[in-house]
């Protein structure tokens, strides 16, 4: 164990290793943040669609979830990064014109966003379906439209129910950003490997990465716990505080 390694300079770059890891952490958090926005938005839409009475919409929603849920994340990264630009000429033109880092960043956000959205969609669906059909019928009975029933009756309850599994998804998303190293995104895991390979201080580098990932995933957990407490309706969910 040699902690001073983090203060040592990188060859030819004028920054220390801890700064290199910190820049990686920035990319990790940025990727996770934007991917979460995509995941939550798309996941909610697809999840809701799968509980409507339109059969064809349900089919499309199911297909979407199965597509993104059944392919390993690393394979999805390769498809987005290597295959899509070669089959879609517009993407190819953009790839060549764009800054390579920018393309890696956007690819990672889209890939992780869609992957996670399929999982969110599944949770939103199960949250809505866990409510008794009486809730939906009550909404219709007092003259609400389908959209209004979702907005005012079903979703407020469903989201509260699924906060705990959604917390896991946020934590998973943060940890899954590490797979983006495979397309060369310079996030925390990429920087960790780089440090290990160039200094041969594998133990120090990976210990640092382990602690950093734990701290950010646990912070996300705490934040979600606060949200859960803030929005809790007393007596609504059994065992709720």
């Amino acid at each position, binding site marked *: 164990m040699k902690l001073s390694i983090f203060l040592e300079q990188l060859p030819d770059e004028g920054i220390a290793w801890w700064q290199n890891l910190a820049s990686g952490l920035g990319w990790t958090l940025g990727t996770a943040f934007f991917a979460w926005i995509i995941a939550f938005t798309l996941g909610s839409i697809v999840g809701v669609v799968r509980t409507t009475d339109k059969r064809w919409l349900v089919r499309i929603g199911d297909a979407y979830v199965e597509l993104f849920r059944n392919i390993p994340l690393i394979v999805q990264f390769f498809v987005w990064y290597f295959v899509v630009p070669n089959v879609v000429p517009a993407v190819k033109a953009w*790839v060549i014109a764009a800054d*390579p880092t920018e393309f890696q960043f956007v690819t990672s956000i889209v890939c992780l966003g869609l992957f996670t959205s399929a999982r969110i969609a599944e949770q939103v669906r199960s949250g809505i379906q866990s409510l008794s059909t009486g809730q939906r019928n009550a909404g219709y009975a007092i003259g609400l439209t389908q959209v209004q029933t979702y907005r005012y009756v079903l979703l407020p309850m469903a989201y509260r129910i699924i906060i705990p599994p959604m917390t896991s998804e946020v934590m998973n998303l943060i940890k899954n950003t590490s797979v983006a190293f495979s397309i*060369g995104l310079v996030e925390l895991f990429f920087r960790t490997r780089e440090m290990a*390979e160039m200094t041969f201080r594998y133990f120090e580098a990976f210990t640092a990465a382990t602690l950093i990932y734990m701290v950010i995933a646990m912070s996300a957990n705490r934040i979600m716990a606060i949200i859960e407490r803030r929005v809790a309706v007393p007596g609504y969910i059994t065992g709720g505080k």
Partner: protein
Amino acid sequence: MKRTAPITLALLLSAALIAPAGAQELSGTLKKVKETGTFTVGYRESSIPFSYLDDKQQPIGYAMDLCMKIVDAVKAELKLPNLKVSLQPVTSSNRIPLLQNGTIDMECGSTTNSVKRQEQVWFGPTYFVINVTAAVKKNAGINALADLNGKTISTTSGTTSVPLIKSYEKTKSINVKEIYGKDHAESFLLLADDRAAAFIMDDILLAGQIANSKSPADYKILPESLRQEPYSMMIRKDDAQFKALVDKTVGGVMKSGEIDKLYAKWFMNPVPPKGLNMNFPMTPAIRDAFKNPNDKGVQ
């Protein structure tokens, strides 16, 4: 009885001292191999023609041929003709940790022997000497490394090319953007797809990727060299017993001239699976390494 004891002891001691190498106490890798009955060779999946998978997904190549000579020597040394040889794929990034933690006992690929790496691992005799340079597309109008200013280059993460290109940028005050592939095939794909203007890597590996590409005539390798580097097989550090066996075996292949046949087989003739021909004649540096087997690392 009492009087003969010291004599017996002395006899035993002298017997131990004059015993042949095979009878000395085993240590390090040889001890581990003897105990587990398995010798694990780490190979690369796309380091053509050193160590790569053929159409039957079997690792073959120049380095693999040399390493199999070492495997034979291990079998003879340990008197284990049925020694199990298992093959484990490794990458640029995991080859050193996997060697250190005992997953593999020797790495046979295209690993640069550097002084820095020697702090972590040991090397056998140099079996190849390369130049680090760039592969570019012929129609890109790039004729020197300096022409890469402002362009994007690809390289494989975890290789010695990464710090080299960074220090070159600094000394020549040019600016390039690096993107990283996780293996050579991927880095080359970035060049082939025009997403990088050049692929910076060891010249022989570039020749391999070019020969393997859809249209080899589209590419060229720049004559400049960022650095010369010796290649060798990696073994665990501080394992003098195994190192002596490796040096003796590979040195013997070099001294006997058998190495010339191996070289011609892999670098001057079509190699499986697709019949690619590297057409890479022996350079003076390589000839010299064969004449004087050594394990000197590059700075």
